[in-house]
């Protein structure tokens, strides 16, 4: 019985490997196409391995996408930092310094992370024009504000899991609200900060809808630039593939090196903190 079970388990590698191929197929195409020389590019041989390693496609893609890559970094980094800090303060207050009505307000904040942005898109564009915040700063601002629900949720869940005694002890020692935050909670909040920063970095980097309505061609972030590149008839598919890798690389690297934290952010997004 036991051995039969063990044998049964090893069969599982067959479907697992088949599924791995399914998940890797697009990456395989992206990577091998990127390393082919222009002379080798042919749709008929798109599945064949490259004869050597060339960088033609990457150089060409980078020359076209470089400005938007930097636009993305310039917008995403401050957006991720600021919405994480706001989330941490909000989470602290909602978990440990509740005020009357806090439990009513929290679900209303949460709802903000599920709304279809089409339902606020016209006012958003109108508002940004009205107050004169245009281009990348406006885009960063949108990501900060619409990021507040998930960052608040993550920190609130984390702080709520900490024992109340931790705060009581500090209070007896004379620490006030800000002191407790600064000297007790902040030093142990780093894992949550990593989770939230990664999440915000990834979602702002990957966003297309806000970017396409809030920026123009001088300050397009990478998603919009890549999509326009893919839609143009004059840029060939191999350069598009190389461009895709450039666009995906920052978030992929974050995932490869900090995957554990990425997963936690993902589960928080389903309200399961």
């Amino acid at each position, binding site marked *: 019985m036991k051995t039969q079970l063990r044998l049964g388990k090893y069969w599982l590698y067959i479907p697992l490997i088949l599924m791995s191929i399914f998940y890797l197929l697009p990456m395989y195409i992206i990577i091998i196409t990127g390393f082919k020389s222009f002379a080798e590019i042919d749709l008929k041989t798109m599945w064949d391995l490259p004869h050597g390693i060339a960088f033609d496609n990457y150089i060409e893609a980078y020359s076209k996408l470089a400005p938007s890559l930097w636009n993305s970094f310039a917008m995403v980094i401050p957006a991720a930092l600021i919405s994480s800090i706001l989330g941490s303060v909000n989470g602290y207050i909602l978990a440990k310094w509740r005020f009357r009505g806090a439990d009513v307000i929290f679900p209303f904040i949460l*709802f903000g992370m599920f709304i279809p942005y089409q339902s606020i898109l016209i006012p958003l564009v109108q508002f940004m024009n009205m107050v004169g915040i245009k281009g990348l700063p406006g885009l960063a601002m949108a990501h900060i504000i619409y990021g507040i629900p998930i960052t608040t949720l993550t920190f609130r869940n984390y702080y709520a899991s900490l024992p109340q005694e931790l705060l009581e002890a500090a209070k007896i020692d004379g620490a006030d609200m800000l002191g407790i935050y600064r000297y007790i909670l902040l030093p142990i909040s780093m894992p949550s900060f990593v989770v939230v920063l990664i999440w915000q970095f990834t979602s702002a980097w990957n966003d297309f809808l806000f970017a396409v309505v809030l920026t123009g061609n001088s300050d397009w972030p990478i998603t919009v630039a890549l*999509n326009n590149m893919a839609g143009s008839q004059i840029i060939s598919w191999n350069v598009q593939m190389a461009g895709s890798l450039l666009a995906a690389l920052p978030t992929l690297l974050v995932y490869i090196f900090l995957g554990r934290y990425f997963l936690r952010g993902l589960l928080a997004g389903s309200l399961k903190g």
Partner: protein
Amino acid sequence: MLRDKDRYLNILLISPSILAILIFVYAFIGWSVRVSLSKWKGLSADYTWNGIQNYLDLFADPRFQIDIRNTLIFTGVFVIGSILLGFTLAVMLDQGLKGESFFRSLFLFPMAISYIVTGVVWRWLMNPAGGSRTSGLNLLFTNMGLDSLVNQWHTTPTWGIAAIALAAIWQMSGYTMALYLAGLRAIPEDLKEAARIDGANELQIYRHIMLPLLSPVTLSALIILGHMSLKVFDLIVAIAGKQLPLDVPAIYMWQITFDGLFYGRGAAVGVLLLISIAVLIIPYIRYTTKIEAEQ
């Protein structure tokens, strides 16, 4: 003394965020509703009252009927596909095999990539061109002698949107797997052990013990994936651009507002999307916050 000072300080510190949400979520929704009830068409704002005319026009528009059909097909294929695949992968990875974390990372990595990148790549994988211009998956199938699998992908009449759902499943099934895996790990080992002692085999254990215990996870997955299908936008834009046969409400809203300048009707699409998502999400938020309060 101290407590009083802090009581005001907490409200003071949280109020900028609350104010931002109040304006950017709730006031903007109200503003959209108002636009949807106006005659606004063109570059300059026009709030002349128009009743529900925009909504009537919308439902009379054959394009919006295509959108509804596409959304239904996409949601069905995407949600069922992601749940079946995600659950199967989670159960396989829950067997304590060597290399589990490697497979888990592999199945999950598409989540780190944007829909635009996914779309650009799948657009070439699903290239429908035939004859000597055959490429992508069709070429792969031909080379492998699987000619019967060669198809028109997203250019298939009526069901083309299902091909887009396939790319979406590629992207999101790992997430569903992670949800199920977290659910499976939360089930105490004793339960399985007890069932084994009673003579249940592995399949029966999953069918009769794990699956019922996982129903909250299935519910979450249904709601999260369902609400994503209603929002699907960039993936389709990247694969197919703005083609009518693959149109969905999110693209319709974007195009009719910012290209066509039919602000009133665009706002109406946004409001309808919001209502359909709110029906799913509000009970979900209430349910999860209630569970939490009970704990």
